[in-house]
């Protein structure tokens, strides 16, 4: 079957919905008689339409629906953990701390903080217990980098909770 043009399919939909002028309807009905593929398509669309009409039933909510709504009217909306004011202050603090740490880092303050920490796990030594001392390399620069990374992650969370989310929620409520 040749694919029908979008305009012809649109005509079929309008025909099914009863939105056609009488003259257009007569013309289309004549075409339907002459073109079996057009008729076939009309039947496919009719099947879909009748299914959708049949499926368009109303759902019935529970008997206690209204009571539950009325009981919920007094419930206070859940407040954010941070007030916008506190959140902004905290956000600024986190950003300032990160900037300071970055400045110190770029000035090379932490460049000479590489060392090894000696750890001795055996409080009593004797000739049967071998020496279990080991060392952990400690690099201050890496530690400060990690702290800055965590600070920035915290700053992003605070930005979301205290600025972005309340702003979008407010914008959505204005729409109503």
């Amino acid at each position, binding site marked *: 079957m040749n694919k029908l043009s979008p305009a012809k399919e649109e005509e079929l939909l309008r025909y099914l919905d009863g939105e056609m002028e009488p003259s257009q309807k007569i013309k289309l009905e004549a075409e339907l008689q002459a073109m079996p593929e057009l008729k076939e398509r009309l039947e496919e669309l009719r*099947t*879909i339409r009748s*299914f959708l009409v049949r499926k*368009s039933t*109303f759902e*019935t*909510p*529970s008997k206690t629906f*209204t009571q539950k*709504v009325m009981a919920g009217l007094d419930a206070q909306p859940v407040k954010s953990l941070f007030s916008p004011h506190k959140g902004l202050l905290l956000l600024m603090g986190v950003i300032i701390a990160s900037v300071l740490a970055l400045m110190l880092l770029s000035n090379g303050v932490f460049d000479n903080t590489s060392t090894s920490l000696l750890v001795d796990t055996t409080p009593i030594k004797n000739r049967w217990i071998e020496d279990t001392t080991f060392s952990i390399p400690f690099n201050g620069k890496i530690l400060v980098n990690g702290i800055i990374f965590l600070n920035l992650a915290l700053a992003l969370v605070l930005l979301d909770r205290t600025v972005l989310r309340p702003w979008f929620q407010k914008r959505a409520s204005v729409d109503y």
Partner: protein
Amino acid sequence: MITTEDEYVLIDRILAGEKQLYATLVDKYKSYAYTIAMKILENRSDAEEAAQDGFIKAFHYLKNFNRQAKFSTWLYRIVFNTAISYKRKVKPTFQSIETSIIEYSEQADHQTEQDDKQVYIVKAMNRLNEADRLAIQLFYIKEFNMEEVAEMMGQNLNTIKVRIHRARLRLADELKGLLKQEALTL
């Protein structure tokens, strides 16, 4: 039967403090609201919760209702948005499509060819993109016209018109394809 004017009077009284009158509006629109939520969430308890939440939000925003649109349209938009945000929160139910097919398939053994087609249309519906599916389902709910569906979904009228037409054509194509496939496997 409450007219639009009666509704406005009722809203004024609710806003003036007669909160209990809100039950009249809830009773009038609960079936519509619940149906909208069901079309979106496809789960009774989630839909009930979302529809109730929508009514509660509408109550809290009632003073913002500017009466340019009908109260019902304004309310349905809130319910629609609430159900959509519930859908984002609720974990996807991976078996939902399969379950609906199995349910229909079991019935199909004893029913007519027309019912067999329904199974495939349900299958085809699940293949539509979500916005097209919702537009077409809401449009076919009695009493919702295209303007209301557009308002509810926060999209313009032409977009909704295109979505509904495209969905109907696509469903017809899918149904044809599925029936052809079925005929080949017999």
